[in-house]
């Protein structure tokens, strides 16, 4: 890593790297006294990466509790004090159904039996479907429309069925054979239960971390003439405050947790990771400009035996392949569908089949889609109604629902992985591979790599300095398949910034050439990827949509989609439900009292003057609504902490930072089936 070359997607931090004063992000409150406690290792966020890190550490301790390396420095005579703080009210409140090759996970659990993890199944069959637009509202280019017309003309001759074309093979880079279909919520619970049962690690849910505690100047590292701040712990979020963060009844200043090593795994929109990026900047040439919102439903299929698409293990041959051969559309556990082309060309979709008639169905709405009215929930409802999916899902019941921001910059968004007293793992460390569409196993692997590095340093009695962490953790990572994969994927999706067809070509080039070939593109900051409303929308259609919105009491972006020709959703109260009902039916939102609003709009004038208000359109929980004065309002009680508002703000006061800040907050979606 070029440690001295600092530039940032956030802008100014690089020049600040030399000016490291002891502070936290909340050092604007110098008069408030923060209690402190001492730990050996403090961790922010509990997801797959932290699961990998803590599992590696915990397992080594279990194998040899007498190992002197595990003796705590802050509690003599006790084992290492390892504290992990998680914002969500439960460690199983993750939001993602995933399919993963699970190479890293299986390496940690060689005897892994998917039956032990609720909702987990071995991947058995994969399909890739190109979905045509059956309703005529999709924003397709002329080229794509021509292609669609040709396909329709050829019809069944080319295998077109239910407005969908199944690719004859699944490209190798997309394959997940040998992997697992999982619920991240259940996987996290499973991992967490084992960790806490072992006794070394304490995982504290419902405890958001507001910021890292930066080291005092004397501990700073010298790197090629530039100094990079170290970290000496975590500051927890204040409690007993009003929505603006001012002390109120029962005020309790966030505690400072001092530690020799701070492990940052709070994801792509986590407060600690953001503060580090702001302070340290990103390595030269790196920037976080590509994002996506993943939104999905967990649907229970009906137990109707007359439905040919239900689970029926008796129709499988001994090798697990369906009897009779041919194209098999049944939704057997472990079935994976990848889709593209609908509801908009830019929106990729998926369907994963879990045991017990549960399926995860969802879409990814990328930042490069550009359309400011890119409301994911409405698109998801149209997606599941596509004929190729709907024939399986139409009698199902919504069991759960959720959303999450994905850092799709991959390696290009990789921050400084280590510094004095800290290391970064998981998605927030740029580990997601956007070519293979894989992030969980990569995140887990980065956690295990750090775990192995920490064990090496503990046993050698070496401190957690930047140099030592670079020589152990970062070196492991650079030599691993995570690094190789991320390099192959680095430019794989650039072509999408020049259109859907070029994007597919670029992805195929990168995938088939192992990343050697790709279509390059200039990628603007996420805010600049939001296109202004097209002129026709500003005229008659916009007026019509606004009128409809006012009459129906529904959001502008929803009305805009209707104005563009998307059919109204035929609500059935079971699977097709309003956005607000989804908040209650599938995935329940928790917002513990006494915490401040974690979504903050900085410049009121900018918000009021914003034409597109994509923050409201992309808000997964409808927690951001626009008032009559044009000012967005935030309701913490509806926020699922997806973080989409962070990268869906088209306004900036300084040309660098968006006008919306996404801070540390408590609660979020609380559903075990995600």
């Amino acid at each position: 890593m070029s440690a001295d070359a600092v530039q940032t997607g956030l802008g100014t931090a690089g020049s600040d790297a030399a000016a490291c004063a002891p502070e936290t992000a909340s050092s604007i409150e110098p008069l408030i006294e923060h209690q402190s406690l001492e730990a050996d290792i403090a961790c922010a966020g509990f997801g797959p990466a932290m699961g990998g890190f803590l599992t590696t550490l915990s397992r080594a301790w279990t194998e040899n509790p007498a190992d002197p390396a595990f003796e705590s420095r802050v509690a003599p005579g006790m084992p290492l004090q390892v504290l992990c703080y998680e914002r969500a009210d439960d460690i199983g409140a993750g939001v993602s159904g995933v399919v993963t090759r699970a190479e890293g996970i299986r390496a940690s659990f060689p005897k892994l039996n998917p039956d032990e993890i609720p909702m987990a199944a071995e991947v058995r069959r994969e399909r890739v479907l190109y979905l045509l637009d059956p309703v005529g509202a999709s924003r397709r280019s002329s080229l794509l429309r021509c292609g669609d017309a040709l396909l329709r003309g050829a019809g069944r001759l080319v295998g077109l069925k239910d407005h969908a074309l199944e690719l004859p093979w699944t490209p190798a880079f997309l394959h997940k054979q040998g992997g697992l279909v999982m619920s991240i919520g259940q996987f996290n619970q499973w991992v967490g239960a084992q960790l806490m049962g072992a006794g070394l690690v304490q995982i504290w849910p419902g405890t958001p971390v507001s910021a890292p505690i930066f080291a005092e100047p004397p501990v700073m590292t010298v790197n090629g003439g530039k100094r990079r701040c170290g970290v000496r712990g975590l500051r927890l979020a204040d409690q007993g405050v009003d929505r603006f963060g001012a002390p109120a009844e029962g005020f309790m200043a966030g505690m400072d947790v001092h530690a020799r090593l701070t492990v940052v795994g709070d994801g792509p929109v986590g407060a600690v990771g953001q503060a580090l990026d702001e302070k340290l900047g990103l390595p030269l040439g790196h920037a976080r400009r590509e994002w996506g919102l993943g939104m999905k439903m967990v649907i229970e299929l009906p137990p109707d035996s007359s439905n040919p698409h239900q689970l029926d293990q008796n129709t499988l041959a001994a090798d697990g392949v369906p009897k009779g051969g041919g194209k098999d559309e049944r939704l057997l556990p472990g079935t994976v569908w990848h889709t593209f082309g609908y509801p908009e060309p830019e929106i990729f979709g998926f369907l994963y089949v879990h045991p017990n008639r549960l399926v995860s169905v969802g879409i990814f709405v990328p930042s490069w889609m550009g359309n400011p009215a890119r409301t994911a929930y409405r698109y998801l409802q149209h997606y599941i109604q596509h004929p190729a999916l709907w024939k399986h899902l139409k009698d199902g019941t919504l069991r759960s629902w959720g959303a999450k921001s994905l850092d799709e910059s991959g390696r290009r968004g990789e921050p400084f992985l280590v510094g004095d007293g800290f290391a970064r793992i998981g998605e927030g460390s740029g580990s997601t591979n956007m070519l293979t569409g894989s992030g969980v196993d990569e995140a887990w692997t980065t956690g295990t790599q750090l775990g192995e590095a920490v064990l090496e340093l503990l046993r050698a009695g070496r401190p957690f300095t930047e140099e030592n962490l670079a020589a152990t953790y970062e070196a492991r990572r650079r030599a691993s398949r995570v690094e190789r994969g991320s390099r192959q994927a680095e430019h794989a999706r650039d072509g999408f910034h020049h259109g859907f067809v070029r994007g597919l070509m670029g992805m195929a080039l990168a995938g088939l050439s192992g990343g050697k070939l790709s279509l390059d593109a200039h990628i603007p900051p996420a805010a600049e990827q939001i296109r202004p409303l097209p002129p026709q929308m500003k005229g008659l259609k916009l007026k019509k949509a606004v009128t409809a919105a006012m009459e129906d009491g529904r959001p502008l972006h929803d009305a805009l989609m209707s104005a563009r020709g998307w059919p109204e959703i035929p609500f059935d109260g079971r699977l097709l439900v309003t956005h607000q009902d989804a908040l209650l039916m599938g995935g329940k939102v928790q917002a513990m009292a006494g915490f401040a609003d974690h979504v903050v709009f900085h410049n009121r004038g900018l918000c009021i003057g914003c034409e597109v208000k994509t923050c409201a359109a992309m808000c997964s929980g409808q927690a951001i609504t626009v008032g009559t004065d044009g000012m967005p309002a935030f309701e913490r009680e509806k926020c699922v902490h997806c973080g989409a508002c962070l990268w869906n703000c088209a306004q900036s006061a300084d040309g660098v930072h968006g006008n919306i800040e996404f801070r540390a907050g408590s609660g979020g979606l609380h559903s075990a089936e995600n």
Partner: protein
Amino acid sequence: MSNPLHIVVCAGIVPDPLQTLEPVSGPHGPGLKNEMVLPAVLDPWAASALYEAAHLAAKHPGSKVWLVALGPKAKLQQVMMTVAQKAGFELVPVDGPIGGFPDAHSTAAVLAETISAIAGLDKTRLLLFGGWESASRGAGITLQLIGEILGITDQFQGVDRIDMRADCSFEVLERVEGGMHQESVCAGLPAVLGWATGTLAEPRNNPQTGMSNMRTILPALQKARPVALSGDSLRYVAVSLPRQQRATRVVKDMSPDEIARELVEWMGAE
């Protein structure tokens, strides 16, 4: 004047009430679908009792709070990571089945036996706390039965407040019909108090309290006594959830009177 109290709080764990629950029948009787994988919380009524207990103990130096909880060990551990940050207590876990369907008599017998075995517990200073209802055990009799087995005759249910006096007598407010409270004075300990919501807000998560509790919680969980509750004495004929109806409409310019009238008609039709 200090009167150290020994407060035992009986608190089970229940599926987070915000989850979608679905009853199912299994080989061992009724249960909830996927109950072991649903997020669990401390029974909300009993949680009020715990917070009141901690508050009371803080006012009486030298007091001690035990939390007696029956449930699967792994699930108890998960819930304790949240509860332990809110109040100081010593956990007395019993590794048993989850769910609200076991016979309340069997449950009470196990809990009473567990309480009797607590080392250092002075029954002359005992306040037995719990919820007057349960989010899973709707019969609301478990706490009373525990009190009876332990021979505690002074029992109060639907408690919202207790004021201890210097001589260990106390005043207690119980909920009674009509939205009223009944005020009683009890001459002394021991006593059983089944709490309603009490008057305290949910305490903030305090990491130091959590760390302090965890020093005893993890060892206690590792030594949790496994029990099997007898299911012979109880047979369920049918199990169902209360019927829910969701009818969302967007209606503008409707007067409050019209809304009230429609609601009354709807309730009448039900």
